[in-house]
């Protein structure tokens, strides 16, 4: 008989939910020992693949000659569409994404063939030798033209509250505006990568950097014509995801798997940065319009809002993304009469995809713009207009008829207004601006109200698997993926708290489709909400089993038993170490392994009537940004940011603050320096970090105050926490609004400048010039 491990004296438990423990991989990150897919030591005989992509954006392939590729040094095999045994369309929700093309070209970079060679360099060099004769057509890149021509990826959608047209007509003040909102490249620092290892009897093991292992499993099985149970996907960690590895990781996994199946050898496919930027989708560019009616106090009476999401060549997730833009076109404001229309247009670029916020930011931007525009029109401080329009008592119904719990945001804004000294700074800035002719300061406070839940209802479910071993250590697995957000740390903290054991007793393993099946993508900020609850369920099941066993053994009620401090306690002073109970339970033949499962309650949405409760709850926050603008060059700096953000009862304050700060800076990048540029031929010119500029260290404001608004989520979420992944990104709208504030100061705050995003120095200078011309025109 085997001996059970010796039990060490218990200590105070460390790292339970609510504590600021370090990321579970922090020590591995800093020592270079955190393993990413490209770091896995390749099995002997591994081939390295490179994609042959289209050099044109639109047209057809007349002739494809891969002879030179095949003959190139080191090349082992070449794969084209003819070699795909199963499905050839890998569209995630709707069809439209061919894994390879041999005929129609719909975007620059579209994969045509795959070459595998004995080294990465050999494969990439060989890929350059493809001779492809194209019939070139002019690409259509303009979203508004696409809408006019009804080039739609999916049907348009409309949400209505009250009678917008009538209320608009009756409004004493009417304002209209239109703006272009740029997309965003994810620029996860670890690019797309997959390693496919063929097993026996047709099985395939995939290591991939993906937010959605179950979908990779499904698509790999489908392209290879296998059952899902033959494909296993393993995902330990990503070097960043941000939505860019929700659907966009799958093509490379499928291609690697196809080549692995064809050659019988392991195949690694890692995209060079340029290919990654040219071949994968981005945040959707939008063109948004509003036509508002308001009263003399600046309260909105009617809001007619149209959002046009540019989805690129295929539907991908565009339907849900434009929906989310519509769901957030109110942001934090009550629109008593609203008519919100959302279009999903097709253009000849890569298929745009999920990116932190998932359309929400683009929807929010138009109503935040409106707040500033109303304020300038009325000569008020924009903060007053925002506060007057906030959801409030009897003004708490969204355009999709969900009731909003409004008091959190009101209190949060009041607290931030005071802690950031908004009013005093406003006065000081106005004074400063009068004294300085070239440099101008700007200030803005903007709120965020972000709906939490997948709007596709069935995705709101999660599973977990928890094993207790006989030394008392635990292994935890759940369906969520770790992309840096600290999900594994938080979920393990939940289990530590539920079982009253040290966090160090719990080991989280790679997300694997053979451990927890049929998982949802780690997206929609839902990772901790869903998987935390599922893991808690698994822990509760095991706790119950152990309690029942102990209760019977000791002749007590199971309800008297407490799990804390690595001990199990009952009665007035009786206890035993957790591990001892585990060992006794094992000997008594109690199962020490359990699954957990969770589905979000209460949510529904009826697309026909455009009404429902799509969100379980709302995450909220607000930010104050102060900028300095050079009116000679359009250059600017963010001088100070003050953020107050609501994560409910935080599962891990340090990790949550990290998400807030990181999201804010990423959002600022989207709205300021990150500019995607396509030429008229449909080629992406900003295809490297040399030309596409995400924020760098000097862009972080020298004064950066971030606080949590500690306030329990009123809904029954995991330890009454709130989701934190996406909402903080939109706090950065305050930076853009502050830039407009600074520009507006040139007109003594009478004119609200047009400032499309990204607000590069060039756009800021052009906005300054346009405003000056308008002022001169007014004077004449």
């Amino acid at each position: 008989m085997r001996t059970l491990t010796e039990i060490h004296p218990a200590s105070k438990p460390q790292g339970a939910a609510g504590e600021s423990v370090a990321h579970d991989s922090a020590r591995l990150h800093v020592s270079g020992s955190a393993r990413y897919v490209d770091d896995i030591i390749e099995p002997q005989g591994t081939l390295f693949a490179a994609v042959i992509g289209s050099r044109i954006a639109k047209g057809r392939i007349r002739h494809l000659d891969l002879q030179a590729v095949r003959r190139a040094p080191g090349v082992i095999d070449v794969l084209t569409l003819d070699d795909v045994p199963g499905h050839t369309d890998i569209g995630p929700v709707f069809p439209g994404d061919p894994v390879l093309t041999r005929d129609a070209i719909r975007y620059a970079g579209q994969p045509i063939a795959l070459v595998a060679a004995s080294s990465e360099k050999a494969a990439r060099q060989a890929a350059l030798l493809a001779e492809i004769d194209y019939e070139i057509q002019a690409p259509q890149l303009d979203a508004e033209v696409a809408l006019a021509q009804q080039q739609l990826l999916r049907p348009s959608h409309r949400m209505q509250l009250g009678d917008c047209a009538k209320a608009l007509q009756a409004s004493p003040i009417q304002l209209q505006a239109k703006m272009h909102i740029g997309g965003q490249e994810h620029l996860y620092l670890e690019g797309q990568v997959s390693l496919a290892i063929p097993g026996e009897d047709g099985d395939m093991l995939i290591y991939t950097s993906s937010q959605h292992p179950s979908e990779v499993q499904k698509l790999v099985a489908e392209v290879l014509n296998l059952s899902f149970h033959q494909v296993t996907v393993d995902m330990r960690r990503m070097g960043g995801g941000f939505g860019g590895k929700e659907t966009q990781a799958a093509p490379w996994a499928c291609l690697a798997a196809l080549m692995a199946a064809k050659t019988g050898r392991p195949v690694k496919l890692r995209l060079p940065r340029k290919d990654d930027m040219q071949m994968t989708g981005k945040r959707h560019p939008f063109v948004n319009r509003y036509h508002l009616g308001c009263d003399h106090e600046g309260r909105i009476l009617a809001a007619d809002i149209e959002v046009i999401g540019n989805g690129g060549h295929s539907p991908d997730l565009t339907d849900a993304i434009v929906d989310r833009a519509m769901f957030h076109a109110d942001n934090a404001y009550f629109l008593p009469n609203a008519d919100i229309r959302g279009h999903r247009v097709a253009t000849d670029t890569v298929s745009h995809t999920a990116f932190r916020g998932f359309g929400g930011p683009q929807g929010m931007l138009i109503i935040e713009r409106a707040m500033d525009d109303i304020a300038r029109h009325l000569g008020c401080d924009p903060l007053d207009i925002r506060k007057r329009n906030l959801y409030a008592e009897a003004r708490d119904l969204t355009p999709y008829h969900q009731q909003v719990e409004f008091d959190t945001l009101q209190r949060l804004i009041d607290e931030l207004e005071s802690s950031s000294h908004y009013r005093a700074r406003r006065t000081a800035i106005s004074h400063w601006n009068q004294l300085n002719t070239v440099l101008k300061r700007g200030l803005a406070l903007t709120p965020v109200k972000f709906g939490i839940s997948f709007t596709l209802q069935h995705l709101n479910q999660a599973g977990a698997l928890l094993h207790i071993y006989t030394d008392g250590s635990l292994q935890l697995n759940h369906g969520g993926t770790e992309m840096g957000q600290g999900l594994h740390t938080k979920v393990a903290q939940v289990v530590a708290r539920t079982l009253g054991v040290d966090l160090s007793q719990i080991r989280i393993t790679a997300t694997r489709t053979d451990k927890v099946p049929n998982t949802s993508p780690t997206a929609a900020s839902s990772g901790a909400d869903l998987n935390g609850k599922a893991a808690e369920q698994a822990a509760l099941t095991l706790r119950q089993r152990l309690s029942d066993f102990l209760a019977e053994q000791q002749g007590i009620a199971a309800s008297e038993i407490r799990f804390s401090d690595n001990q199990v306690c009952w009665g007035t002073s009786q206890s035993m170490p957790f591990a001892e109970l585990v060992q006794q339970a094992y000997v008594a033949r109690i199962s020490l392994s359990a699954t957990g499962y969770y589905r979000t309650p209460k949510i529904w949405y009826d697309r026909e009537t455009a009404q429902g409760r799509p969100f379980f709850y709302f995450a909220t926050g607000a930010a104050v940004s102060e900028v300095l603008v050079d009116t000679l060059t359009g250059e600017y700096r963010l001088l100070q940011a003050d953020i107050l953000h609501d994560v409910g009862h935080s599962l891990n304050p340090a990790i949550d603050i990290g998400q807030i700060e990181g999201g804010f800076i990423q959002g600022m990048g989207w709205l300021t320096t990150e500019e995607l540029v396509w030429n008229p031929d449909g080629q992406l010119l900003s295809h490297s970090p040399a030309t596409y500029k995400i924020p760098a260290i000097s862009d972080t404001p020298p004064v950066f105050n971030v606080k949590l608004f500690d306030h329990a989520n009123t809904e029954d979420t995991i330890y009454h926490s709130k989701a934190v992944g996406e909402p903080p990104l939109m706090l950065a709208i305050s930076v853009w609004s502050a830039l407009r504030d600074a520009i507006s100061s040139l007109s003594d705050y009478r004119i609200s400048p047009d400032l499309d995003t990204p607000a590069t120095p060039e756009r800021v200078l052009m906005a300054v010039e346009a405003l000056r011309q308008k002022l001169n025109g007014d004077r004449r």
Partner: protein
Amino acid sequence: MQFMLNQTLIQVDECAPDTTLLEYLRTHLVQRGTKEGCASGDCGVCTVVLAEPDANGLRYRAINSCITFLGAVDACQVITVEGLSQSTDQLHPVQQALVDQHASQCGFCTPGFVMSLFALTHQPDASSSDNPLLQIHQALGGNLCRCTGYRPIIDAARSLLKNPQPDQFDAQTGSIRQQLTAAQASDTGDITLQQGNEAFFAQPRDSQSLLKLMARYPDARLVAGATDLALETTQQLRPLPRLISTRRVAEMRRIEEQDEALVIGAAVTYSEAEAALTAAFPPLAGLLHRLGSLQVRNQGTLGGNIANASPIGDMPPVLLALNARLRIRDPQGVTEIAIDDFFTGYRQTRLPAGGFIEALILPRLQPDSLLRIYKLSKRLDDDISAVCLAIHLKRHQGRILEARLGFGGMAATPARAYQAEAALQGQTFTADGIQAAQQALTQDFSPLTDVRASAEYRLRSAANLLLRAVLEDQQQHSLEVSHYAHTD
């Protein structure tokens, strides 16, 4: 060739000369702590630290291993993230500071930050700066992080600068220095690395040897810091079988302080030249901090920036404004050529075949001269200029005697604005006095619209930069928003 990887001496017998250090680490040595982010020197993920003997011991500098050829680390110690800690339980102070501040999220950029911070803390004057935030920005401006927003990384850096802690590297300085000196002594010929009979990486020690090699291998490529050339192999996948490095050519490695001029060897890196350049030309300091990243400035050379004649190089506009001269050496001997005459077209120069730039001669400023240098780009750190302008004026009794305006980003080559210069002649340096010059810029230049900026923005902001110079001269304080970036 030999180099030290952390504490281990590595002997490389044969290797393709265009192999990058990153490729060698990850593929040949299977050391995978160092990651690849972009393979173009733009993200800093692959940062490693080179240690080389100097007068006091060892000099540490962070570099991008993705655009460094293996041959260039000959006789260096390459310090990688794996070399810092004994185990995950015994972290290096830099690593521990990052853990303590929650400064890693996805962790992919983290090894690069670790190495940049390691290099920062090993600078001789690390903890004596009066502006630690500026120092941190300069040290880490070439490391991108997409997750954290940098605040915890800045806090980690602050704590390290405030509480310097000795590490095992301090203790080993003497022995490492000895081993590196021995490794260098073991290089007997010009060719330090080769593959077969045809491919090589050569490191001649003086100008004559360099000329000989160039004559013998006319198709060989000259490589200095490789910060541009390496992209041909990592981005265009073009083989570079024969490389001749300038990194040891004595005549190209000197800085000479002459009475009339500052003479900087063409193979002197930006970092090495910084102190001399900013002492002689104080307004250059701001530009040097924004020229590439520290990793790039630690490798890139002034000569390389000129020789590749990119329209957007940041030093050529300054050299044009300063009326610099180039010392050219070719088989016929040494000549001097004015920088004005050097650039002939897009990436084309008057460099004679078989010749090279040996040094740059920068005439010193006169007491009455005014020098202003501006760079416009989307991002403050590590970005390429949309417009770069160097204004150099000589004035007498309030009137402009001579004006030289060097521009980058406005034409196919770095270029002077001759019409605008002429329009400034005899004028006062005032808003009115520069009006004609501002208008003349449209005759001097028809800039391109490209990924960085539109032609319209370039022309308008160029004209406005002249006004900025006037206003700064009048108000005697900076009107650049960048000055507000580095102060708490």
